[in-house]
């Protein structure tokens, strides 16, 4: 499997007040194209920091970070924003939908950064909502949808621009078991049928079991990596 993401000796330090806090201590990792990775570990272990780096939301203090051969740690803020728009689909624990926009409009937001026409955007939005099973909820505002439905809208927003990598930060953390299972199956389907690379941070071992490989972090270090039996 070709490595889609390569992290080499990554160190990440935050400055909190007058203190420097190192959260990742020389972490190296390769993630293959089309893998479904779950990242687990206790609070403060550096899971979200690692995810933010892979997604291009943050830059490492030192080390090398390449995605599809491109050194994203070297990109300027504006170029990283454009890179994210092209390559990354985001799914958050609390959905992070824009409350003033309808479900359809929320899904359309990433497409506003493309050169698609309004008709093409409408078509893509309808297809994405269809895929997540919410074709009939396009006009509903997030406040009018359940947690599971909101997360499905968030997944539709993540996939509408056809990115190759999905980063999911506790995507089932705010959902009941039944809704969580639905979301995880949706992510599995995207991985299996569309070949998307999925990196999911979770505290939930049941959720982590849906991944093809599990990574455990503790105190900023990679401690275990295990592949799930097919």
């Amino acid at each position, binding site marked *: 499997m070709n490595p889609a993401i390569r992290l080499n000796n990554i160190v990440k330090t935050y400055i909190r007040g007058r203190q420097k806090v190192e959260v990742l201590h020389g972490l190296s990792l390769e993630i293959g194209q089309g893998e479904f990775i779950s990242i687990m570990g206790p609070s403060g272990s550096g899971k979200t920091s690692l995810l933010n780096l892979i997604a291009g*939301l943050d830059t490492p203090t030192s080390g090398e970070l390449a995605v599809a051969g491109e050194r994203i740690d070297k990109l300027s803020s504006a170029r990283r924003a454009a890179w994210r728009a092209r390559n990354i689909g985001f799914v958050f624990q609390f959905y992070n939908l824009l409350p003033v926009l309808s479900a359809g409009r929320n899904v359309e937001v990433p497409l506003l950064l493309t050169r698609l026409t309004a008709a093409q955007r409408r078509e893509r939005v309808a297809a994405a909502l269809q895929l997540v099973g919410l074709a009939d909820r396009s006009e509903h505002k997030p406040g009018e949808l359940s947690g599971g439905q909101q997360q499905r809208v968030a997944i539709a927003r993540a996939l509408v621009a056809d990115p190759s990598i999905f980063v999911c930060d506790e995507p089932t953390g705010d959902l009941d078991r039944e809704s969580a299972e639905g979301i995880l199956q949706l992510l599995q389907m995207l991985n299996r049928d569309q070949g998307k690379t999925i990196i999911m941070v979770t505290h939930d071992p049941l959720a982590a079991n849906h991944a093809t490989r599990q990574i455990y972090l503790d105190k900023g270090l990679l401690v275990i990596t295990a592949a799930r039996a097919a």
Partner: protein
Amino acid sequence: MKYLGLVWAGLWRKKVRTILTMLSVVVAFLLFGLLQGINLGMDHVFQSLNVDRLYVQSRISMSDGLPLSYLKQIRSVPGVRAVTHWSYFGGFYQNVQNNLPVFAIDASTQFAVYPKIKIPNDQVAAMRRTRTGAIVSAEIAARYGWKIGDKIPLQTSIWTMKDGSDTYPVDIVGIMDIAAYNAGSFPAFYINYEYLDEARAFGNGSVLYYIVSIDDPRRGSAISAAIDALFANSSNETTTQTEQVFAQSQIKQVGDINLIANSIVGAALFTLLFLTGNTMMQSVRERIPELAVLKTLGFSDRKVLALILLEAVFLCVFAGLIGLGLARMAFLMMGSLFGALSPPALVMETGLGIAILLAVVSGLPPAWRSTRINIVDALAGR
């Protein structure tokens, strides 16, 4: 255009706050439209006034008046075509609320100096031969239901008669059309000067001012100087001005309208700057997680800045246009009060420019702040 939905939704995130802010902008621009409209409208009227008529008044104060004996001397100045005089009567009908623009005039010269007053010759002749005669504008006649032949007990707040009465009975002998002379401010009720002067207990032999018609408007300054030179170092020195300058100086007596209008508008817009700036700042503060999501999805700092600025532009320009539109409507509805005044296109264009400037100045600090949002911290709720 594709970002319009995003901008519009952001603007209406808090409907009540947006509506209240918009109302403030509407009122400020309504005020701007009205005051600047009056200002520029007045300038327009002044410019349309005649420059071949000169006004001769007392150098000390307009209310001091001038001797009637000046008439012959002024008439003798080369370049003078005709001279007439007006004396303010301070008239009212039945009670002081029914204030009337009554002037005592010389009927034999009035219509030579103001040839665009429309009145039949026989009515002018009737005025000249009837000591108690009066000519009123068609608008005043219609307002009080007066017609030729009616006898009116005209009262004055100034000129008590020698017998102690303040009522001057007058006979309406003519009805005139004064539309050509800015009907809103032109004297619209004439009585004979001789009648007033013979009857009044004081001020006899004086007039308020002379109006001089000249042959060549280009010689207005020279003729003015010649008239004033005639009475230099006398006990009643004169100041002679064109009708345009005279009208402006009359308005100046009320106050510097321009300065007052600009001060009020300036204060309103300055206050508005803080109000809209605060609204936008608050709106951005509340939306930091949402703006962080936009940046996460790939919106650059510049795009987020543009979105916030566009919101401010929408808020100010949309509401500003409503305010300016209302000002225009107000002028149309009050057309009879303001006469020829209306907010010129320049006021609308300037107003639009100010609305855009207001939006940029008030929207820039919150827009700039939005670019400083750290995605990781904002998403973590820090």
